[in-house]
């Protein structure tokens, strides 16, 4: 009695599943470090346009950021891309929410000063703020 129901539903949901997986894949790809357009009221920090990369050679566990790249467009900070020291998923993923949080804050305020450090991840927060400040200093040249 249920065989035809099962077959039809499995086909239908199988197609839906494939669609959801593809959508999730592309949504995930964009969710990492997207470029942020500055809001209309944001004061222009007046930086030099271009990409400014700060690299760290330290490999201590509470200094997980290997490289930070700041992108400036029309004087505005529009993107910050972070690379981690290792490909270890644990430290990578433990740090990602912290970095995303600080990054969003920095892009909104167009500054590396007065960032709210994430509790439980002060090492990461500090390194991010220092690296970003160094990149901004480069852009001020």
């Amino acid at each position: 009695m249920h065989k035809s129901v099962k077959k039809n539903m499995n086909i239908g949901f199988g197609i839906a599943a494939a669609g959801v997986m593809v959508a999730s894949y592309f949504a995930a790809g964009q969710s990492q470090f997207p470029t942020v357009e500055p809001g209309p009221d944001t004061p222009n920090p007046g930086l030099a346009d271009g990409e400014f990369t700060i690299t760290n050679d330290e490999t201590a566990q509470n200094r997980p950021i290997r490289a930070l790249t700041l992108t400036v467009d029309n004087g505005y900070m529009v993107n910050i891309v972070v690379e981690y020291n290792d490909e270890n998923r644990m430290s990578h993923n433990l740090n990602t929410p912290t970095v995303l949080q600080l990054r969003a804050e920095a892009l909104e305020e167009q500054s590396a000063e007065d960032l709210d450090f994430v509790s439980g991840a002060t090492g990461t927060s500090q390194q991010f703020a220092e690296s970003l400040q160094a990149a901004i200093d480069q852009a001020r040249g």
Partner: protein
Amino acid sequence: MTEHASPEYTRYDTDFPRPRVHGINKAKAMYAASLAVVWIFCIAAAAIWVYGRGVQTLFTSFPRFLQNVGGLAGVVAAVLMMFQVLFMSRFPLFEYGFGRDIIVRVHKKVGYWSFWMILAHAALLVGGYNIAADFNPWAGWTGTGTLLATLIFAIVGVLAIFIAVIFLSLKKIKSKISYDVWYWWHMVSWVGALITVPHQIFLGASFRTEVPVGYFLGYPVTRLAIFWMIMWVIVFGAAAVWRFIVPVANYFKYGMRVVEVKPDGARGIDVIVTGKHLDRLGTKAGQFFNWRFLGSKGAIRSNWFSVSMPPTSDRLRICVRVVGDGTQRMAKLKPGQRVFVEGPYGRISGDLRTGHRMLMFAGGAGAGPMVSLLTDQDWAPGEATLISRENAHEDTMMVEDIERLVNDRGLVWIKSIGLPNIPAFPDNYSGGSSWLPANEDGTPVDGVSILREWVAGEVDNVDVFLCGPPIWMDSVIADLKKAGVPDHNVHAESFVF
């Protein structure tokens, strides 16, 4: 000793009420909805892993590959555990949509797979992290702080699940313990599943690739993590509601009490229970409850019984074969004792009918649901046949009700009396089908041709219902298959747990 009376039913009276075939569509819809819930949970879990950059980082390095696949194994194990709880939550959608037989079969299979997925999850992650850290097991942990504590939870939870489930799946143990001991052991595994949840949220890589929406105890919580939590809340919420809250609420709402206990056959009793507005329970003839009779010794122990007459607004009746365990205590029940029930459960009801005729197989106390179905359903004289299988004449249950159906409505009653035709009774063993008694002349029993006679070539017009000992039902079902009765016309469900 078998009275193989061949049914001489009259041709159908066209004015006679027909089976309510709309029930089939309802059963199909419930099945479809149940299957949809399963699919949605699977898709959601897989999507979480993909959205959490599971694919993008899959091939960046070998240890990373192991870590990502290990993470996926963890997600799969978790969603399988969700199904384990959800299927056993007594959520009516699954009880009716899948039925107890499918649920129990799937429960075993899913349990097996979640066991191996948990082991794979642990092995792949330990391997992946150690390779990445040059086999220094302590290197990866500094800086992860107190989040690591949630891993302790995971280990404790998994141990609880494994100990409980491995213990329970040992056949020797399962046959020795009562349903209730078995039940409460299972609850240990539920608690185990529950305490593995924090490590999924706080260490799960898939939940850590977004800007957090908030912080819990200082730790970031993402939208995806909240979504995952909602899935768990649905699962354990369903279990809490249908396992505990509804039965307790019903206990107070219906105030069920024993009104009468009387012998039924040489080895059986009838228990009649009363209560307020019992029709609001929505019980259908053919369904069953889990019963506890409070105020007598061992009241915490429960037993499964089907209702043995169509439920009315103030009466429920069960017939009980006194065989041991709880049923011996039941002979001593007194009127006025309060009754705690869980149910109604089971998908067997008249709704499943597709044809005009009914062929009912009752083994022992299985007479209860069969007679209540016959009483409840519409059929013309001669269209319904009841086969009562008993070891001895005086054991036959519900004789009064059956005789009333024979006299008033034209039920064909076939009494099949004699010791089981199995090697365990060598004096009565003649080989062949084991669901019938042995032939007196010692020739093997040919159940298939007897069934063909009863079905009379109308395989699509007859619905077969069975209730009795599982081994006996299996034997009947095997012969029904050989006699050409399609699976979807055979309706059997055991109180398997």
